[in-house]
């Protein structure tokens, strides 16, 4: 490690300065970050009385020579940067040289440190002043003990909460760092009770399992995607699980834990149309971006960063999650999952099932229910569709089932068709291309006042979707032309039920108006559970679903695909 030096004023002036020690949790965070910056492989944390009485952080990092240890307590003394230029792409947690000085100024601090096994330095300071420098014997590493926190600033003391809630804040800080630095062994006790005992693991999923249990970890969907120079990875909640447990948000950029609303919003946008209003998913995301794209020097506690191209980054995040949610893995599985945590260093290759399985070999958009009413198939002039679609079975006129190497897959026909139509309608609304069949006998609809209002409010969108509707005074509509999303489409019923649903929904959803309408119309236009499908219709639905962006979920966030692993089947038959 380079030696510590006091930063020149020119650099100090460039640093986003601020008071960093607000509460015991900040002390623990700073000390732990220092330990990690010093290359520690193992850190032990002991906190007493919520941190008010004592905080001790012991590491096996580089340690400090005696002179450095003394200098470390000075303001703006750091070994991590020298010049302003070093701030660009700085890789350490610390870089301002302020933390130890700030901690020392409000407490009694004791540093035991050794740069090699054997002879070390013991240093005591109180209220910022070095009291005692001596020798000690210890292994390589550093132990910092902080006592009498805020004892000289009674006003701060009065702001502290109960030891329990101070500890909770500390535990949150530890959790964030533990997720980011899972290569390090972390143990922590509070009032002598062990609360963290985290062995080094190779994957985020492994850390999550150690923190919140294997079942929770197994339920998350892996994200792993590269857009240009941006790598987005992590774990996110399945739409079907969102809202069922505490929401957890973790975001790191180049290993640094940060808060960023924009990225969280972009991530949530990827769930668009798979979640009911108001439900938000847990997100554990790690971004790796070139150092010159981030500026970490903007926030006193380094909790926020600035991006040079935020738009590109947010798009990358959204795309990555969307892709992840499009996999079978994000459909709820029955029983145990195929992989076990810890064994998936490579992001679970081989078990994360891509929807390519659903896609037709030619990548084409399979039409749903392709044959128009009454038309003879041989004359529709189509090439025979010899793409590899597995044999499909319809169950209870509701589900399509097929077999794969790793288990049985069930598709909910209504949800699946709804997803297909939703994306198609959305495309129609966004491209403004709306095929519309004129009717020989216009349909007349008599509406209630609420439905009539709903129609008026959405008339432009209905038109864009291909409905040609005339208001006929009062609450009567005349429909002269209709879209033909599939041959079984019942335009009258669809428009009636859509208006019903629009009139009946009292809370305005956050989704844009056109998305909401597309979703509602898709739901009403889709084939229903109970509709018997021909083999050709099943195949068409299968390939159309495979061609959607989010095949695993319907527009309400319910699963369209359920995967029953062979393991589960075998277990039920007692074969395992």
């Amino acid at each position, binding site marked *: 490690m380079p030696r510590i030096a006091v930063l020149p004023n020119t650099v100090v002036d460039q640093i986003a300065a601020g008071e960093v020690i607000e509460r015991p949790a900040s002390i623990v965070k700073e000390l732990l970050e220092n330990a990690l910056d010093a290359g520690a492989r193992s850190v032990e944390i002991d906190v007493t009385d919520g941190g008010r009485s004592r905080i001790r952080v012991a590491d096996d990092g580089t340690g400090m020579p005696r002179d450095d240890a003394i200098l470390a307590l000075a303001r703006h003394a750091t070994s991590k940067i020298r010049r302003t230029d070093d701030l660009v792409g700085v890789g350490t947690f610390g870089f301002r040289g302020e933390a130890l000085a700030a901690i020392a100024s409000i407490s009694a601090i004791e540093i035991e440190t050794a740069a090699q096994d054997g002879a070390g330095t013991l240093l005591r300071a109180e209220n910022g002043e070095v009291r005692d420098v001596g020798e000690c014997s210890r292994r390589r590493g550093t132990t910092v003990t902080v006592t009498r926190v805020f004892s000289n600033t009674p006003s701060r003391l009065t702001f502290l909460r109960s030891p329990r809630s101070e500890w909770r804040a500390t535990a949150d800080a530890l959790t964030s760092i533990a997720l980011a630095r899972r290569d390090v062994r972390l143990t922590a006790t509070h009032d002598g009770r062990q609360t963290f005992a985290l062995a080094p693991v190779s994957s985020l999923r492994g850390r999550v399992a150690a923190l919140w249990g294997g079942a929770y970890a197994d339920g998350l969907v892996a994200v792993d995607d590269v857009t240009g120079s941006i790598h987005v990875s992590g774990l996110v909640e399945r739409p079907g699980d969102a809202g069922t447990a505490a929401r957890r948000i973790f975001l790191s950029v180049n290993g640094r834990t940060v808060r960023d609303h924009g990225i969280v919003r972009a991530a949530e946008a990827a769930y668009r149309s798979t979640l009911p209003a108001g439900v938000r998913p847990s997100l554990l995301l790690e971004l790796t971006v070139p150092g010159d794209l981030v500026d970490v020097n903007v926030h006193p506690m380094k909790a926020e960063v600035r991006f040079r191209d935020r738009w590109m980054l947010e798009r990358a995040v959204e795309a990555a999650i969307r892709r992840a949610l499009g996999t079978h893995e994000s459909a709820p599985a029955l029983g145990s999952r195929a992989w076990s945590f810890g064994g998936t260093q490579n992001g679970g290759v081989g078990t994360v099932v891509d929807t390519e399985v659903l896609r037709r070999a030619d990548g084409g958009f399979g039409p749903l229910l392709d044959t128009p*009413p009454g038309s003879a198939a041989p004359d529709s002039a189509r090439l025979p569709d010899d793409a590899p679609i597995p044999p499909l079975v319809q169950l209870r006129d509701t589900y399509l089932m097929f077999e794969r190497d790793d288990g049985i897959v069930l598709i909910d026909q209504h949800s699946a068709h709804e997803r297909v139509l939703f994306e198609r309608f959305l495309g129609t609304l966004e491209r403004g291309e*709306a*095929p519309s069949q004129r009717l*020989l*006998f216009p349909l007349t609809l008599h509406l209630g006042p609420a439905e009539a209002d709903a129609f008026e409010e959405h008339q432009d969108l209905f038109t864009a979707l291909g409905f040609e509707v005339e208001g006929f005074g009062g609450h009567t509509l005349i429909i002269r032309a209709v879209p033909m999303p599939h041959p079984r489409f019942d335009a009258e019923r669809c428009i009636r039920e859509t208006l019903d649903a629009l009139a009946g929904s009292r809370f305005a959803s956050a989704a844009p108006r056109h998305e909401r309408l597309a979703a509602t119309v898709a739901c009403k236009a889709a084939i229903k559970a109970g509709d018997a499908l021909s083999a050709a219709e099943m195949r068409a639905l299968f390939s159309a679903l495979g061609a959607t962006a989010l095949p695993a979920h319907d527009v309400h966030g319910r699963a369209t695909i359920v995967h029953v692993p062979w393991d589960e089947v075998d277990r039920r038959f007692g074969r395992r």
Partner: protein
Amino acid sequence: MRFTITREKLQEGLSAVTASIPAKTTLPVLANLLVETTERGIRLSGTDLDIAVSTEVIADVDSQGAITIPAKKLAEIARELPSAPVRVSATGEQRVTLECGKTRFRLLGLPKDEFPSFPSVRFSESWRVRSGDLQKLISHTAFAASTEESRPILNGVLWEMRPGHMRMVATNGHRLAKIELPLESVGAPSADLIVPPKALEQIRRLFAAEEDLEIARGDNHLGFRSPFTAVFTRLIEGPYPNYEQVIPRDNERVAVADRNALFQALKRMSIIASDQTHRIRLAFNAGMVKFSVQTPDLGEAQDELSVSYEGDPLEIGFNASYLLEILRYMPTDEVRMTFKAPERAATVEPMGWSDPAKYLCLVMPLRLVD
């Protein structure tokens, strides 16, 4: 019950009725055929409750009776029997024995009381129609009926009986087929009947063209019969939409085209047409129609065909599959098409059909976006 029948006669009877046996049914007796002895032989009947077919074949009856026999098994047996007289006898309500040479089958039937009774239709008051005329009407219209459940009335074919003519009309609301045939007299008073196409299909298949059929109605059924065979069908409750009103009278743009060339061009275009809407664009100009199709994510295609065309230039979009289908049923080498405007109904008619029948198809356009 005991009778002897030739294998050929048995097969003849079976081939007429087995098509009316439902493939899947929750009522077990519907999987069976009703076999009854008559003065001339035996009568075989089958039904799926919507349509019932019954036919009489010659047989030597020793003793009278009736029983139901599993239809599929009986048909399979008849197919495999040697060409020799078949002796059939029933003991009690349920046991049937078939003997043919040294071959012997015993089948378990069901009592005849379980078989649904046929609708009562008063043939005393009936129309008389030549089967061949009926076939012509059916084959030019039934294809156009709707197969969707949303408007049940359009699932039927409208059959109008009038003093001087009869007419059939079918539509799915997007396109329509209408055919009219002058008649001397049909016997009974005028009527509007809405008949399921499935029943019409049976009628077209079962009766020879030169046969005269008696047709009569019951409460909501229609019966057809020839000396040996009878078909009964459920009728669909009216009223049928007012199709006269939508037939354009003032389409002043007229094109005459070679049916086959038009058909081939449309077929080529529909390779690229969208799978959902099959939309293609037709641009009519003096002496020429240009076809074009653009489908996002797929591609585009163009073609042209010389036609005789009168009227201002016109661009209009259609579902290609509707046009193809209509052309398939056009009975002449040349067809006449008329148009008014891109959003109005177009008509297609045969040109120079040497038939007393008048045939007209309508098709509604698809909206074009540009």
